[in-house]
């Protein structure tokens, strides 16, 4: 039987954003003179006016250029396709054969990289207009300053690079743009799928951002997801999808995997202040979500918090989504708390530029006014003693901000780097909802880069900071905080007001890349 009939859920699984490559199709356009003659369209004397001379010269240049193409680009970002060479004589004729040959890999090509021998500029401009994809060139004598302006005037996106570093920077951000266009978010929905209760500063319209950036959404009803998290080899028993055999429930086999992951998670922790079964329970929903993401071919995740919490099912199932977000982000799967999609997209950009997992939290400025570190919650959310201790440690530091939630990463220095020390504590004071506890004080002095989209999806905030403290390592709940200094915290706050609460961060200084990325995405970039 046709396999598609067997299971309409035939999927190609998850394709992570960090694994996306930018396919660059190099094209060398060479011109040779058919006849011997002199004039302003060529230079030289004697043998230099012969066809063979031109062909030999074109070949020499092409050979060297191919060598350069093969080595000058970062293979992590760029996949250089098989170079194409096009010959043209002094009739300067553009033929459909040439255009088709140049465009033969257009299906997978993202950017065309041109190099030339002699003056084939009109051919490049015509091709650029028809192919509808970006083109670029290394600066080469006067060629680039002829081709690029001509293309830009005709609405073609195009770049010229003065050096290899500039080329690699641009290709790296074009890669991230491509990855964003291939992002497919598994969005857990209860009621409003556009904006959740706790993050009305999310995008005004998800449809709009899909049109702008290409990122798509696959929605799943929270009640059906919760039922899928009940261990059951036969998924026809689900209350909310009676009789359906979607095969989405976590099986006993997969539950064993979840238990193994939980044990490993506990084993590697410095301290674990939770019952094993509660940690296992958290991995039950994590494993279920991985299963659904694979089935729905999603490579990003978000779920509302208060909206779902209010059904009391989280309390009944004894898990939260926090650890799922941490583990997703550690695996290069952008994951955002509270259905905050601008934070999700910003995390995706930061992760793909820095190749480090990101941390999302409530971001507030914490100026010292009247001797007190203001605006830092003290009580239910952040433990009073922990905050007072941090007050002392921070002393009179100025321009201090705080980002706190419960989803830190154990690999802040990069995917695949050494795991940093962590401990395990529960989100709920009654003991469920495992969260990673990470002591940010270990990284005082570390530079961080932050970003967030604005609700209309037309602006990008990019900011830099330096870690200067931490809070919440020893506490439960949504309290794992990193203090950091910015250049000017009141300026930071005023600019934040156009963007929103959660401002994800990654380790390292990626301002240049993030600013260029914002521009390439057509966004107004605001820096702080």
């Amino acid at each position: 039987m046709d396999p598609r009939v067997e299971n309409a859920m035939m999927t190609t699984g998850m394709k992570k954003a960090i694994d996306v490559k930018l396919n660059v199709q190099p094209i060398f356009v060479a011109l040779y003179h058919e006849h011997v003659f002199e004039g302003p369209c060529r230079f030289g004397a004697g043998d230099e006016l012969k066809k063979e001379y031109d062909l030999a010269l074109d070949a020499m240049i092409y050979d060297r250029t191919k060598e350069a193409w093969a080595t000058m680009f970062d293979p992590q970002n760029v996949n250089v396709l098989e170079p194409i060479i096009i010959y043209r004589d002094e009739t300067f004729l553009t033929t459909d054969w040439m255009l088709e040959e140049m465009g033969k890999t257009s299906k997978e090509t993202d950017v065309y990289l041109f190099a030339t021998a002699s003056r084939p500029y009109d051919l490049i401009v015509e091709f650029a207009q028809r192919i509808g994809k970006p083109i670029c060139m290394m600066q080469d004598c006067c060629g680039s300053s002829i081709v690029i302006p001509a293309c830009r005037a005709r609405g073609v996106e195009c770049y010229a690079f003065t050096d290899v570093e500039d080329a690699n920077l641009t290709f790296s951000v074009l890669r991230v743009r491509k990855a964003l266009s291939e992002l497919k978010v598994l969005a857990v929905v209860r009621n409003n799928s556009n904006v959740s209760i706790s993050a009305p500063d999310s995008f005004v319209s998800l449809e709009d951002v899909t049109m702008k950036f290409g990122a798509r959404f696959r929605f799943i009803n929270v009640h059906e997801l919760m039922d899928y998290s009940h261990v059951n080899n036969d998924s026809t028993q689900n209350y909310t999808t009676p009789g359906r055999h979607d095969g989405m429930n976590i099986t006993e086999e997969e539950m064993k995997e979840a238990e193994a992951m939980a044990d490993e998670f506990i084993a590697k922790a410095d301290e674990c202040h939770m019952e094993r079964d509660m940690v296992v329970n958290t991995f039950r929903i994590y494993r279920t979500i991985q299963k659904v993401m694979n089935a729905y071919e999603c490579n990003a995740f978000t779920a509302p918090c208060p909206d779902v919490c209010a059904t009391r099912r989280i309390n009944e199932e004894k898990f939260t989504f926090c650890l799922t977000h941490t583990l997703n982000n550690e695996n290069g799967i952008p994951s955002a708390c509270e259905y905050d999609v601008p934070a999700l997209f910003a995390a995706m950009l930061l992760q793909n530029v820095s190749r480090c997992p990101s941390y999302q939290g409530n971001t507030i400025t914490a100026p010292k006014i009247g001797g007190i570190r203001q605006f830092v919650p003290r009580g239910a959310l952040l433990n009073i003693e922990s905050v007072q201790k941090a007050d002392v440690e921070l002393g009179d530091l100025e321009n201090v901000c705080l980002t706190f939630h419960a989803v830190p990463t154990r690999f802040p220095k990069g995917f695949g780097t050494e795991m940093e020390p962590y401990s395990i504590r529960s989100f709920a004071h009654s003991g469920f909802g495992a969260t990673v506890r990470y002591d940010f004080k270990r990284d005082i002095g570390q530079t961080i880069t932050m970003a967030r989209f604005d609700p209309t999806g037309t602006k990008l905030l990019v900011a830099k900071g330096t870690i200067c403290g931490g809070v919440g390592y020893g506490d439960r709940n949504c309290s794992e905080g990193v203090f950091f200094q910015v250049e000017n915290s009141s300026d930071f706050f005023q600019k934040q007001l156009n963007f929103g609460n959660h401002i994800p961060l990654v380790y390292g200084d990626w301002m240049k890349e993030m600013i260029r990325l914002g521009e390439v995405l057509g966004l107004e970039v605001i820096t702080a």
Partner: protein
Amino acid sequence: MSIKPIKDIKLNVRPVSVVLYHDYVFEGPCRFGEGPQLTYDFDKTVNLMMCKAFEESLTDASVFDPKKINFLPHILIERNEEFIVKDEDMEKVGEDIENVDAFYIHVGMSRTYDFMIEMAERFNKPVILGPTMAIDTITTAAIAATGRKVYPVRTVQDVARHFDVLRVKKMMNNLAVLCAARLNSNRSFPSAPDGFLSTEDVTKRMGIRFRYTDPHEILDSTVPRPVQTAYDEETTNHTTPGRIGLNPNDEDMAVIEKITDEFIAGAAEVEMDRELIMRSVKAWYVVNKFMDHLDCNAFTIPCPDVCATRRLNKEKITFCLTHSLNQEIGIPSACEYDIPALVTQAILMGFSGKAPYMGNCEFGNIPQGDDPGAFWSAMFVHEASKNEDIPFLQKQQAEKGGDYVIVTHAVPNRKFKGFDAENAPYAIRSFARSGFGATIRYDFKQDIGQVVTLMRIDPLCRKFFIAKGEVIGGIGYKDTNCSEGVVVKIRDHADFFRKQSYFGNHVPLVYGDYVEELKALAEEFDMEVVEA
């Protein structure tokens, strides 16, 4: 229940007279007349006589329908030829401003434009001048220049029409839609991807608000739970363990049974057993409890998305009857999570005071002969449909051409002639061939000759698609499933279809001709009109 249907909304209009008495006897270009006409006494007498006439004109129910317009107490502003706009007068006219939807200005003698322009600017409310001279374009042009709407008037009928439009606009501002989204809450892809691209944008443009709930939580709440104690997870709903739900209790069940029996008793034919009818009535009742709880007065829920969970089949419920019964009491209610159709229903209700009908649009292209083709055979299976209704349409098409549209769904109601009208004759048959999902069956042939207005709003909420037609037949009265069709003669079905392609499938209709009112509303909302 305290649901506030928009049909009961009235436009609160503040009548204001702005008059001017000349303090002194003198002549010049700011006044006209001679002898006693130049006296303060004359000015005051004439102006107050005019005010008295103005007040009397407000009571003319043939012009201003009291069910639609609520005139607030008349305010008189008296000025002299110093032409001063006093704060005191502005405060006086601004009394109870939160309840004022529009000002209806009676312009007394002489020049009081400045006062009215400042009123428009300060209160940001529509200012409609009573029927006076064409010279009032002075005032309207000045107000329009501030970016505000103006309301040109030649007769009191013009005034009434402006009030009608502002009232429907007020209805939109008071519309709170309960959206039961299983997945995408913006538009349901399986059933109506021609929905609004952004409900947030609709809120910005039309003031309509959207409240969201979960269809699983509604379906859970249809299970009667006489006694509920909080935090007792056994007796509460699967999707909200430990929470007291909106499940019908004993008292509710008594009401539901009564409504069911009345519904059955009123029907000319009933081809469903009572228990399955009651399940549909119960679904309607629970939806109304949700609307009441969430302060909503409109409802929509997807069909295919929810159906695909197989819970409708398990609970033996469809929401067709919910939509029909909601529409009868002035609550816009749309199938298939089609929010443009819902908003259109609200507008048509607002102008007509009648319940609308929505359905898929099919066109006059039924193949001739015994085999009318797959669609018609699958959708209309009853003998009456096959042997009478379809042949009628084929004959119609052969003789008079195909310029008609068949609007087909399963949510007709009994108040097409008006919310206050008597229930029209109806039957009860099931949606599901297996017998569940009560639907009202309405024989549209009883309304042949009736003029109807069809309308839809585009997915970007920027255009109104408007058409007029006339009922020439009906199909599917005897049938089950989503097959209750009204055949409407239209000007040109090709033109209708070509324009409809920019709007979407469901084009709700209402009895009566409201084309001009809809065009006026489109202008009020800065929307384009596409007429077929």
